[in-house]
């Protein structure tokens, strides 16, 4: 502590008090902006909006969209958020940021000045640069068009409500929401379109979409109307299984009106917009935390903030990245902030102070340029591949990770790997897989449509590791049935054998 006095003489903090003002927020933002530039953070322009706690809850409950169509589920979300807030359970409630250009970030008026600075660093420079840089966001979302599109979607939905009734639209949205996670092309690159373009196309679609559907149902070869079953295996429709259920229904459901197809499309576009976020939680939150931590330290080093400011920020920071152990009553899985933050921090360490182990595990990175390395890691991966690539033995040791196997054919749980030499690779692979969306969600695809017979739709579930479908499956199938308009079947097929079946409307059991 001998040189504390020294640094203090150089300290010329922007402010001493913890009350914020617009002027101070601007000054801090400018200072942070300068630091961010030093580190080469490339961001969209920022739009910082100061809002009240209640407005923040509004924002939260519309899943973070500044404009949204109306639906009861958002009302439910609000009540849930409100309850959480009142009980003081809400986590990082003081921060919300939207992947748009300009990047919109909300500051809650209740926050103290250090908290505002932390949120600015975290959201306006951390998340913002992630949105702009990460390849998933670049390919799947169009930041400059999203707000316009949301406005379009909202007015389209409310027009439909006027024309066809709130209830009709609500039912349709319920069904679409049930399939939202299956409304994304996971592998094909989608084309982001703007709102104007969307409106124009929508008019074109009105006419031609119906024609397309009609064509499908007209061009049915009707050589043998009685025949069904085995033979149809040869000429399934679609020829290849389709993973995007909503897309398939939008294009091919026989009975839907054009406005219903348009609403399905809107939900599909939302799903697509959120798709990158679902796959980059660890990376995104880790990146934002790494940068608020790094940027605020830089401010401190420059003498622009006080010790008290720094203490408050660090206190909040350690709350955010706290990881309760598995046996704690507060445990609810791995904290993505902790995991991501630890990996980025360790990447910097591996570059700046590599050990023998690092040279062995990361020969390309160890001793390299840390800024280039973390940026590379941020840009070109998603959670699954990021963990596979960059989770180091040190982070596994620090977090004391272990893998446990639960097999319903065994009487005991087994510890299959821990944070030791023998376990690192295994552990890393298992953790990466855990973040793979197609592992977290069941694999269900459109398998066949009975074009010549009852027009029924068959979906096929391919179980992984014998994991069956959950209890709400029948309920979801009712939604599929509502959209499709004819019988819907879902079969779980493992190695060519049907291991489970669902039908809507339900079929009488054969042995009854």
């Amino acid at each position, binding site marked *: 502590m001998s040189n504390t006095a020294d640094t203090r003489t150089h300290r010329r903090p922007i402010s001493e008090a913890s009350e914020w003002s617009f002027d101070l927020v601007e000054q801090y933002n400018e200072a942070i902006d300068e630091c961010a530039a030093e580190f080469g953070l490339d961001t969209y322009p920022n739009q910082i909006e100061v809002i009240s706690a209640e407005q923040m809850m509004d924002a939260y409950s519309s899943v973070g969209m500044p404009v949204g169509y109306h639906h009861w589920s958002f009302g439910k979300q609000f009540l849930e958020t409100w309850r959480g807030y009142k009980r003081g359970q809400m986590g990082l409630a003081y921060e919300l940021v939207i992947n748009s250009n300009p990047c919109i970030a909300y500051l809650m008026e209740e926050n103290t000045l250090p908290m505002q600075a932390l949120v600015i660093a975290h959201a306006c420079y951390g998340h913002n640069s992630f949105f702009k840089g990460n390849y998933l966001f670049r390919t799947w979302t169009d930041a400059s068009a999203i707000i316009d599109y949301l406005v379009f979607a909202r007015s389209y939905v409310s027009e439909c409500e006027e024309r066809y009734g709130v209830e009709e639209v609500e039912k349709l949205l319920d069904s679409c929401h049930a399939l939202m996670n299956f409304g994304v092309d996971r592998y094909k690159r989608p084309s982001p379109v703007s709102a104007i373009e969307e409106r124009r196309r929508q008019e074109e679609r009105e006419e031609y979409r119906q024609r397309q559907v009609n064509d499908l149902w007209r061009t049915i070869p009707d050589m043998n109307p009685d025949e069904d079953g085995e033979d149809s295996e040869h000429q399934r429709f679609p020829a290849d299984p389709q993973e995007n259920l909503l897309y398939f229904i939008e294009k091919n459901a026989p009975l839907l009106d054009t406005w219903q197809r348009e609403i399905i499309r809107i939900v599909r576009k939302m799903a697509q917009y959120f798709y990158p976020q679902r796959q980059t939680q660890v990376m995104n939150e880790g990146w934002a935390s790494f940068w608020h931590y790094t940027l605020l330290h830089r401010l401190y080093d420059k003498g622009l903030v006080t010790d008290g400011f720094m203490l408050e920020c660090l206190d909040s920071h350690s709350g955010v990245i706290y990881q309760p152990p*598995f046996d704690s009553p507060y445990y609810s899985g791995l904290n993505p902030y902790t995991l991501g933050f630890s990996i980025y921090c360790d990447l910097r360490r591996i570059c700046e102070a590599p050990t023998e182990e690092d040279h062995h595990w990361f020969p390309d990175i160890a001793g390299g340029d840390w800024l280039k390395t973390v940026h590379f890691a941020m840009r070109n991966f998603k959670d699954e591949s990021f963990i596979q690539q960059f989770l180091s033995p040190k982070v596994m040791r620090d977090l004391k990770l272990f893998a446990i*196997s639960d097999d319903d054919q065994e009487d005991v749980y087994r510890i299959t790997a821990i944070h030791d030499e023998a376990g690192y690779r295994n552990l890393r692979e298992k953790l990466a897989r855990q973040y793979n969306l197609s592992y977290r969600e069941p694999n269900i695809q459109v398998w066949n449509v009975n074009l010549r017979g009852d027009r029924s739709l068959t979906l096929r579930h391919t179980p992984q590791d014998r994991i069956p479908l959950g209890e709400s499956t029948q309920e979801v199938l009712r939604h599929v049935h509502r959209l499709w308009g004819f019988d819907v079947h879902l079969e779980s097929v493992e190695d060519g054998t049907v291991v489970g079946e669902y039908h809507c409307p339900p079929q009488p059991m054969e042995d009854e």
Partner: protein
Amino acid sequence: MGMRTHIVDRRLNGKNKSAVNRERFLRRYRKHIKRAVSDAVQRRSITDIERGEDVSIPSRDIDEPVFHHGRGGHREMVHPGNKEFVTGDELDKPQGGEGEGQGSGQASPDGEGMDDFAFQITQEEFLDFLFDDLELPNLARKKLKDTETFHYERSGFTTQGIPAKLDVLRSLRGAHARRLSLSGKRRRRLRDMEAQLAELKAHPESDDPAFSPSEQIAELEEKIAELKQNLKRVPFLDEIDLRYRQHVKRPRPATSAVMFCLMDVSGSMTQGHKDIAKRFFILLYLFLKKNYKKIDVVFIRHHTSAKEVDEEEFFYSRETGGTIVSSALKLMKQIIDERYPPSEWNIYAAQASDGDNWNDDSPICGKILGEYLLPMIQYYAYVEITPQDHQMLWYEYEKLMEQDPDSFAMEQITDAADIYPVFRQLFERKAA
């Protein structure tokens, strides 16, 4: 760099962005909420009926279904915080077959919490649900009563008004502008002449013998004096500067109502009876309050004679003796005549009794009601709180109901659980 950031204060923007979504949510779950509301009416004490209510909905009714993994099969999960495990350790599964399905006590990410979804509705929403589908019978718009039916709204400024409404700031601002525009030129001239005068006085010698400085000075001084006099005539505050705040009188679209509570307090009415009656009156009061801005409540209690009393005495003081219902009806008629002309008031009445009356009196009651009261009032509801057989009064009233089903209704209540259903029945929205 900082230029690329835009900071906006949104705090004054619409707060309730979620209002529509909330309303949609409440509409979707109205069955659950209504059940909670009607339970609350039974359970709550009367004094706190005017607040919101906790509602809870079973999560199976509220979960939004999605395709997800079920229990079973084989899973491997990575967790933090290992203390003593080493690879190859075996741990017993919890007994009882089902188990967690996930290992190490973690709540399964796809499992459903069995907790109910709990939330609160506001008092206003509570009342909406409470009186949903109910309609005030004969909701007639009465002649507007002046004192209550007009109100004043601000509507800009005017040049005429009373001193109390003078807007000082605006008036002075006007005066200032007027003074500037009226005197600006002259002031400038005055300033010029004063400068000239000062110049002359400073250098009294002149090159031009035709004009002696002293003459010029005198002339200038005279002009200056005249100008000053002139300027003084521009008043500091003129009548035309005055601005008054303007208020216009707008008729209020609300009507007023009076509610008569009539109750038998003779010896046969127990406190239990009275509590039931009280709940019924409270429901009526809340219901009227939803529809009228101003409501007077008149309490009339009776045994053999009737008396207008305050609320406390109405519900809680005890009496003994016989019953003459007509005494209360007569008093009600008298009060209407004196204070509540039917042309200006919507009149509602609710009568609670155990059905006991002097037999000779019941036909009189029918007559007073049928001939005098019912033509004047909106609605008369009679509740008979008794598990026993009806007596004369009931049969007399039945005739009234046949005569005038639009403004007279009657029901029997046997215990507290009946109150709400009976109330609903009495005020049910009648199919057009």
